[in-house]
């Protein structure tokens, strides 16, 4: 799949933002006043910034409001609703913390759950697609959720939680890659099932429908990223897990914490880029490509 920068930015930043909102909603840290304001401001910049970035890849962004209507079947619609509901509740909760020094528990917990729900619905947009076998598995939502909660813990300054959650997220990421590598073959879809010509003999794409490229090839067939996949995976895991864990284990300082966060985010970016670049859509088979 084409790794569109807007979608990668959106999913990494809003994942972090909603991850932080999750921790804030639970009351860790239970800051008030100006400190709470800074925490909430960071969370909203990340979450809302990500959502705005996601509209950049729309063909008709001015109609984006219509996307709230089809929650009965569409994960994209559910994501939109979940995100707005989470941002709304957390704004009320945040106002309580910043202006009244109050933590309205019920609203906070509900907001925290909706924040996680937003990340889950985002991941389901990908996980629901049978056409991209690498994404079509329960590990995809687990991957998104574990990264969001771990990154959120790091942002929220929950050092011990962050340490363990980053390790767990790293394990999930590794499993996602290893199992993901086998998914296309396991799906059983081949050029023979795509054309139903396998009964006659070995099928080979002989001539594409046109000499130039097209929307389908640009969107679904992306081979460049896969060449360095192994190297990029090592880099991603190093930045996402190894560096932050080491920095968190040394006696805490704000500099080490900041560096850990930067490394982690850079690692998640790399992993998310690979998430798209390595994903193969079955339509590529019709073009003799993957």
């Amino acid at each position, binding site marked *: 799949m084409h790794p569109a920068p807007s979608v990668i930015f959106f999913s990494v930043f809003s994942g972090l933002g909603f991850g932080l909102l999750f921790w804030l909603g639970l009351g860790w840290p239970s800051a008030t006043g100006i400190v709470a304001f800074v925490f909430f401001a960071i969370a909203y910049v990340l979450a809302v910034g990500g959502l705005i970035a996601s509209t950049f890849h729309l063909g008709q962004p001015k109609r984006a409001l219509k996307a709230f209507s*089809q929650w009965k*079947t*569409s994960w994209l619609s559910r994501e939109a609703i979940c995100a707005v509901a989470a941002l709304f509740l957390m704004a009320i909760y945040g106002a309580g913390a910043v202006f009244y020094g109050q933590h309205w528990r019920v609203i906070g917990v509900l907001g925290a759950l909706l924040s996680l729900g937003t990340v889950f619905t985002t991941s389901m947009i990908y996980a629901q697609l049978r*056409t991209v076998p690498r994404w079509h598995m329960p590990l995809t939502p687990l991957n998104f959720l574990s990264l969001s909660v771990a990154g959120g813990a790091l942002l929220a300054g929950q050092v011990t939680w962050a340490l363990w959650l980053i390790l767990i997220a790293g394990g999930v990421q590794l499993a996602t890659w290893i199992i993901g590598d086998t998914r296309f073959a396991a799906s059983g879809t081949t050029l023979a099932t795509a*054309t139903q010509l396998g009964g006659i003999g070995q099928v*080979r794409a002989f001539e594409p429908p046109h000499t130039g*490229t097209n929307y389908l090839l640009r969107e679904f067939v992306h081979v460049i990223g896969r060449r360095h996949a192994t190297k990029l995976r090592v880099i991603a895991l190093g930045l996402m897990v190894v560096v932050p864990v080491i920095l968190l284990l040394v006696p805490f300082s704000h500099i080490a914490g900041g560096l850990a966060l930067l490394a982690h985010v850079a690692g998640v970016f790399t992993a998310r880029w690979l998430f798209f670049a390595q994903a193969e859509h079955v339509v590529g088979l019709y073009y003799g490509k993957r």
Partner: protein
Amino acid sequence: MTELPQSTQKKLGLVIDLDTCVGCHACVISCKGWNTENYGAPLSDQDAYGAAPSGTFLNRVHSYEVQPDTGPAQLVHFPKSCLHCEDAPCVTVCPTGASYKRVEDGIVLVNESDCIGCGLCAWACPYGARELDQAAGVMKKCTLCVDRIYNDNLPQEDHIPACVRTCPSGARHFGDLGDPESEVSQLVAQRGGVDLMPEMGTKPVNKYLPPRPKDQPPDLDVLAPFLAPIDQEPKGFLGWLDRTLDKI
């Protein structure tokens, strides 16, 4: 609404005969023509006369080479457009309700004034039947020529999709695949019509008729029995030359 109907009154669709398609791409052109020259926005092209042309098409013809265990390879031309699936994954993923499947005839359509161009439906379609129009910013797909088949301003013989009307080899058939008595259903039954990528669970309405088995003629050269077989071992001067050259 993007909920799929429980059932549709008709299942209008195409039956494509891979045995007779000659790969002329006439259906591609007539489709592009009908959907560009008539109602609504055209199917746009980018850089049409430049170095890297690219455009929106609702129907494309692939060609595949199939190599049997014995005998020569076969070339199969393979037209592909929306298969108007019964369990259309492209419809349920749509966040705006722009994509829908009609209850009356099962045609899958996009309401272009509701589409935000998120592209998710194209991701969900296994067949590459949807393309985002780069000029209009909305999703385009085969409409089964809904603006022809019910159009009373056209003569009766034109109440079929443009591709079917155009195909010079009669490789494309249009009809109600929900009615077992219809000509298309009969054709599918006779020729063993198949679904593409059945494992995707989309239940496509359009069916593909596999190429008929090729017969293996024993010897097509009608004059062969009347001609003396060509000598394998040359005699005379050529024979001498052959033997001498062998020895060197």
